[in-house]
């Protein structure tokens, strides 16, 4: 197999089994393994040295010493911390994240239940941020110092600085309680709970698969407010960053050259300047999406949204370490996965890194 370069030389395309690809794959696997070992080790140690008592999370504060000691041993806390950690890793290698104290369910099952709720919310919020925030940022940059720029900056400042908790309550009061435009807290009205079998856990998709449009509509009605609130923050951040990146590019000489050559303003902005901010934007959007996938505890609390953020936070308060570690691994996977996706997208949009 061979292909021509721009200069016409023939270069060998590496075969699937070539040493360089194997080395690269092994490198990625090793770095992933190290990342996860580091992540779990740090979380594990922090969990163990925290002053909160995981035994009391199970037995309650009134338990007698005999019951306390029994559970202490059952949790393996009488063993040295490295033994506890190695046991956990062994368990992890078998695909077992342990059982949560709070929910009495395997952590894996909990994650499969809570994460799709957050995924649903974070994805809609991020899409809102991209499809509204990016054009807003571009609009502000090309109109720097004029009223569209001022409006975008004010919206950005508001979205970025207004507390999500307050914004959520006000939105609920106006759009749910007063105007009756949307449904209230929760993912579905109670009478729809358990009506369709969860396939993906994302209700919009499950309802669409089941062709149950009543439930689909109800889910949208519940989702629209929390996603918009979360989206306001995302939108503000993305708009601000887009504006800043665009301003930087619009002051470059190649933009002037394009204009001098008679390119239309649309071509100058979108084909020349915007293309050059895409790489930076992908990084920003990726990181924003990943942080939303960690769960937005405040939004989830206000909207009684059973997401991963609330799950991890409650687990932390209860020192439910299996759940905390499971949640940490999910967050780690999100960040690593989105980083890898961003790398792939860089290659698509930037010829220099192909």
């Amino acid at each position, binding site marked *: 197999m061979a292909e021509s370069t721009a200069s016409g030389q023939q270069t060998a395309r590496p075969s699937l089994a070539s040493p360089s690809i194997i080395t690269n794959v092994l490198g990625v696997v090793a770095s992933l393994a190290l990342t996860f070992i580091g992540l779990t080790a740090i979380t594990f140690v922090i969990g163990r040295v925290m002053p*909160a008592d995981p035994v009391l999370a199970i037995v309650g504060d009134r338990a007698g010493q005999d019951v306390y000691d029994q559970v202490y041993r059952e949790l393996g806390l009488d063993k040295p911390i490295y033994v506890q950690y190695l046991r956990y890793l062994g368990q992890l290698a078998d695909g077992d994240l342990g059982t949560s104290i709070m929910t009495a369910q395997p952590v894996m099952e909990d994650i499969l239940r809570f994460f799709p709720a957050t995924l649903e919310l974070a994805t809609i919020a991020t899409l809102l941020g991209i499809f509204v925030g990016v054009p807003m940022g571009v609009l502000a940059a090309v109109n720097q110092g004029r009223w569209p720029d001022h409006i975008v900056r004010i919206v950005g400042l508001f979205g970025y600085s207004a507390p999500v908790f307050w914004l959520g309550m006000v939105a609920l009061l106006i759009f749910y309680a007063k105007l009756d435009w949307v449904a209230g807290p929760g993912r579905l009205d*109670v009478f729809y709970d358990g009506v369709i079998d969860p396939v993906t856990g994302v209700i919009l998709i499950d309802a669409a698969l089941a062709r149950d449009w009543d439930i689909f509509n109800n889910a*949208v009605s519940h989702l629209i407010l929390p996603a918009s609130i979360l989206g306001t923050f995302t939108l503000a951040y993305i708009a601000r960053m887009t504006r800043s990146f665009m301003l930087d590019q619009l002051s470059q000489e190649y933009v002037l050259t394009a204009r001098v050559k008679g390119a239309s303003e649309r071509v100058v902005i979108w084909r020349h300047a915007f293309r050059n901010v895409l790489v930076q934007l992908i990084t920003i959007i990726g990181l924003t999406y990943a942080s939303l996938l960690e769960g937005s505890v405040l939004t989830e609390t206000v909207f009684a949204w059973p997401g991963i953020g609330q799950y991890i936070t409650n687990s932390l308060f209860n020192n439910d370490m299996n759940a905390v570690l499971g949640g940490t691994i999910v967050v780690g996977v999100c960040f690593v996965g989105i980083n890898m996706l961003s790398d792939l997208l860089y290659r698509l949009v930037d010829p220099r890194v192909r």
Partner: protein
Amino acid sequence: MNKIKRLLLAFTAATVLGISPSHAATPDDTFVMAKDIADIITMDPAEVFELTTGEIIANIYDRIMMFEPEDLQTLVGGVAESWDVSEDGKTITFKIRPGLKFHSGNPVRAEDVAWSLQRVVKLNKTPAFIVTQFGWTADNVDDLIKATDDTHVQITITEEFSPGLVLNAMSAGVASVVDKELVMQHEKDGDLGYEWLKSNSAGSGAFELKAWKANEIVTLEANADYRHGAPGMKRVILRHVPEPSAQRLLLEKGDVDMARNLTPDQIKGIEGNADVAIDGYPKGTLVYMAANAAHPILGKPEVTQALRHLVDYEGMADSFLAGQFVVHQAFWPGGLWGALEETPYARDVDKAKSLLDAAGHGEGFKVTIHTLTNSPFPEIAQSVQANLAQAGIDSDIVTLEGKTLWPKYRAREHDLILARWSPDYVDPHSNADAFAHNPDNRLEAKLTGVLAWRNAWADSASNELAVMARNELDLGKREQQYLDLQRMLQKTGPYVIMFQQNEQVARRKNLEGFVSGSNFDLVFYRNVTK
């Protein structure tokens, strides 16, 4: 590409159409309440000790003895139709009601009753002490608790206890009667069905557990064949809504029938709503401050007496506690049999100062007040801090989550602690054993479940009276002994008992029949109607 465009268009159209008004009312046959249910960690009655699950299992399981919603003051038979107490008071024989059935359709047998108690002792989870205090251990329980025939269960205690107390303990959650046949079908590695029963139910009560999704929802379904008749509602749903403001909005909108965790401000704000009613239920939860008797200054009786005179009880109850707590100064909650309703302490700074002078600390001293992070504890702590300052006591407040605070308390690492306590079952011994009875004050004794031990406080007169009341057969004498014990602790104990909770529940006016008794697990849904 056109296909993708069409799909996107369809999705967008469906999304826009989806922005429709929410349903305005809950179904007529369903009771929906908004509640913070994050405390649920198990549904197994052998382990349940949390507020939310306490009330849930009270509606799923019938107990051997019960307080019924129609009369919360009178102990009556649950699955027990009648009972006989032996002359020495150590053996009680229960006759089981005929014709009772579990939700599974299995009959409720004497064997189920005996096995349920044996299971609690053998699993030895936190609430097991309620029955193991009678001398039952994993080794002897099969002999001491047994079904003598199909309809009779005999229990024998080895320790000295009043039969009245034993009968009261048989109304606690650990005395829930579990369907042995069903549970044992799910036993794994000899766990007596422990893993399965954590998230399932096997009872004969008014409701059956249909679903528990942690931090999301609990659904109960009515047992149409319940011995008192079918419940008023076909379904009861507890929706997890952690934020009280969201609970209020849901209630006012009619999306829930009841909100369980509203703050005093929200209760005040909702009072004008013609569709909503507010009910108050006196609960057994007490708020108290305790002084570590091992502290060189706080260990002096004059100092704790001074603390009792410094606290502004009425000021707090009339302001920020606004109806959610009432002043109560004895260790057994008001309204219950054996409760001392006297409130001898009011704010008296001069008297407190003279007591501190007498103890040699008229110049004041410095202490730390540990308390919980959740309301109203930080607010009460701040008020107490200001009260103490008037007598020269300089206090720092440290607020901690329960999981961090309790280890400190159990290790006696506090000066003053502001905390709460509620009875485990409806007998004054439940609290007397915690507040007044510390048989071994040594650090290595580790009686960590006992409040008196946690505060390094032991008093022979108090110990003696607590044991005497515990064992007394005569009901009248027993009540008097508990009243005396409460008076004794009001003067000599390390506690400043301040308030008793008054649970305020907001409901839609069309909903009636909800009953919430003094104890955390005396909450009943079966008479609810709309």
